[in-house]
């Protein structure tokens, strides 16, 4: 028995290690990819893992989650996905009836999780039944639990891949005819889909900033795609933002991760654009899938911002400058919550003050489990 479990744990280790090295080596980049890969990874982990009690199961997932969050500490999506999975597991373990309903509840109406958790708190029957479940029907319970959780993860994965479609559905209400939009995040696929969908119903102009030096190639591709869809597109250099802002109706940004206070991390240059928009009283929309929302709080802004290749800012062709100047190339920017008017997600449209409510809905199951909140904070 021990050897079997030993083999199993080795398999698990191999799985975990490969995924972690992928993350560390940045073979997977981009929130969307990482989220889907994490889902796949967790499914595999759950199928190969061996545990005797559900509590052990939860501990195992937590440990794995901790490790993968540390592999890429600035990529909060991994942590978010693990948290959602843990929520699924807890739901199942606490036996709130049909687990499928539970998974739906995570994605569906916000009031339901609150009821069920309150209900759980008050009712003793369910908890005892869950413990009975774990002790008596060990292996069968394990398999049941496993399949249910994997089902839940699959649904989570579906939700993540359908983020764009759901966000697109909200476009029409937000853009009027002949509007001028500005987008400083040309690398965002969500923004691209948003605009392409909106162009079917409305005619507008899009100004795209170049985001030199990190995203300039993406900017050119983005602009080309928009132009191919017959949207009036204008590429502007990053410095021209203030000059044109008085003519811009709305600013549309793609967020990389969103935090508990409503602030977000996005490409370099976006913070200045949002500040500029604030000065001109131009509304700023941020689009982000729900999987990007993280309950962590950005205490240390410096650690959020990754620094990239300085050679892009000052290439070696400027040889007489290279050794003598200090050059940094921050890849990200932190945008304070006051600069963003609205977050558009695949579920709802949120104002930053109410982000806390959002997190409550996702995390109610884990809220009264005090330990969970600590482990996955960076």
């Amino acid at each position, binding site marked *: 028995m021990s050897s079997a479990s030993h083999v199993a744990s080795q398999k698990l280790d191999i799985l975990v290690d490969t995924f972690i090295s992928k993350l560390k080596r940045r073979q997977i980049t981009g929130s969307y990819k990482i989220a889907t890969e994490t889902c796949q990874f967790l499914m595999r982990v759950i199928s190969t893992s061996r545990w005797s009690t559900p509590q052990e199961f939860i501990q195992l997932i937590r440990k794995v989650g901790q490790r993968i969050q540390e592999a890429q500490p600035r990529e909060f999506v991994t942590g978010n996905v693990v948290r959602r999975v843990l929520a699924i597991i807890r739901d199942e373990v606490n036996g709130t009836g049909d687990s499928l309903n539970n998974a739906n509840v995570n994605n569906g109406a916000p009031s339901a999780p609150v009821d069920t958790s309150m209900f759980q708190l008050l009712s003793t029957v369910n908890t005892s039944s869950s413990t009975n479940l774990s002790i008596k029907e060990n292996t069968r319970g394990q398999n049941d639990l496993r399949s249910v959780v994997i089902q839940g993860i699959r649904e989570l994965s579906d939700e993540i891949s359908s983020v764009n479609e759901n966000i697109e559905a909200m476009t029409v209400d937000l853009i009027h005819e002949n509007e001028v939009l500005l987008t400083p995040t040309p690398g965002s696929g969500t923004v691209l889909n948003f605009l392409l969908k909106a162009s079917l119903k409305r005619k507008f*102009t899009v*100004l795209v900033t*170049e*985001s*030199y*030096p*990190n995203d*300039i*190639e993406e900017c*050119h*591709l983005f*602009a*080309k795609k*928009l*132009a*191919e869809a*017959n*949207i*009036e*597109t*204008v*590429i*502007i*250099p*990053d*410095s*021209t*933002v*203030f*000059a*044109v802002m*008085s*003519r811009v109706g709305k600013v549309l940004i793609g967020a990389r991760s969103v935090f508990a206070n409503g602030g977000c991390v996005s*490409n*370099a*240059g976006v*913070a*200045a654009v949002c*500040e*500029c928009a604030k*000065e001109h009283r131009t509304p700023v929309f941020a689009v982000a899938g729900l999987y990007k929302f993280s309950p962590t709080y950005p205490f240390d*802004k*410096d650690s959020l*911002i990754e620094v990239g290749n300085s050679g892009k*800012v*000052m*290439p070696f*062709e*400027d040889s*007489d*400058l290279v050794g*003598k*100047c*200090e*050059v*940094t*190339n*921050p890849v990200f*920017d*932190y945008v304070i919550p006051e600069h963003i008017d609205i977050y558009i997600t695949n579920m709802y449209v949120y104002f930053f003050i109410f982000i806390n409510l959002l997190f409550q809905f996702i995390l109610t199951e884990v809220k009264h489990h005090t330990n969970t909140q600590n482990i996955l904070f960076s």
Partner: protein
Amino acid sequence: MTDKKDPKATSQASVVPAATASTSAAANASKTGPPPQKTLTNKELKELKKKEKAAKRAAAKAAHGGANPDQQHDQHGKSNNNNNKSQKPKTASQLKKQMNSAKIKDTDVKIPAMFSHLETREQRIAASPTVASIVHPSILALTLKISTYKVVGSSTRCQSMLEAFKDVITSYKTPEGTSLQRHLTSHLSHQIEYLKTGRPLSVSMGNAIRWLKQKISQIPIEMSDEDAKVQLKEDIDLFIQEKILYSGKVITQFASGHIQNNSKILTYGHSEVLKKLFKYCAIEENKSFDIYIVDSKPLFEGKKLAKELSSVKNIKCHYNLITSLSSVLERSSIDFCFLGANSMLSNGRLYSRVGTALVAMSSKNKSIPVLVCCESIKFSDKVQLDSVTLNELGDADDMINTKPFNKTGFNLQQYLNNLEAKKVEEQNGAGKKGQQQQQQSKKEKDDKLLQSSQKNEETLSNWKDYPSLNILNVLYDLTPPEYIQKIITEVGALPPSSVPVILREYKSIT
């Protein structure tokens, strides 16, 4: 001479330079000599004019239908009249027509709708001998440098322009029947017209020209031409010294008090005055401080400043692009933000390199004082409320590259294209194939000259084919006065609301 009458050339732009390249090749060695000498010998002038007439006829057939008969008439008129007569006021308009005939309309220009009212460099003047006989070579050289951003910056352009005018005045000879006071002004106007085709004049250049014209008209009648020229040149020197060089020094004196030891200064782009200020503080006053230089595409002027300052011992340079502005401001506690100006407008707004407004706004929001150093020659009585109504458009094609590059001027580009075309034609013989190859080779030349990787060139090199795609490249923007704490000029330090006061004073000084 056969390629002069090349009817198969499709693009207008390539025809005239083709003709002119061959004429210049065929022309006598006096091409190397200064053109004003040529006008002394009528015979050579007549011969040249005849050749040009033939060239023009071929070119004008394809290019300018309407203006053609006028041109020929002008050419004829010029060759028939003797030198003196041709310089009468009548020929001022003839000269103008000549210059206009050499302009090439670049129909390929695409501008975003919002900015389509702004002037573009649609009309380039080809390097033809017709122009060369009117325009002084120093001005030709200067225009080339200005249009390729080799000479860039308000004070620098103004100074270089005045130096070029000194050369023009030196080689100037008053035609008979008119006086220097009256004629030199119109002669200078032709030079200025040509200069404008490189880039629109800045406010400082405009003010300097107005001053110069006033000075010319104030020359006493009895003074001989030689004396007048000497006096004018001295006046120009004095003007440069006073308004540009010494002003810079005085501003430095005023502003150096703000820079203390171990202070951190933020600056944007490249400004002559600021460079002097920083060097003075580091070298003369021996202060050591940090400078954060913010830079942007496409001109990358900050690199120039960084090159100069990084070799100064007491200065520690940091270089960043404008996208990382908020990170820089967040991380390092900047003490002051110094900005340079192209001009100060009458309603207290700062007209400066695009991106300045963003830097000023971000600094203000972090409670960093913003100081502008600006000589009084840059003050203008214009009033403007935003950056869209009046601005300068650069070439949209400068923006296609994803890496910094060296801009080749329009004339150089044409010349190289023609070399390629000639090579290709010699190989294939004239034919439709030659056209396509010319286009292809032109594109290849573009690739090589722009020195960008193949993949990047692919992405936007055909941006003009997409009707909905536009590229915006404006050069200036307007910073509202609420972001500026103090403007430092050589007449003192003042808040932005007091700009009209300086204008009044400035007018009284001159």
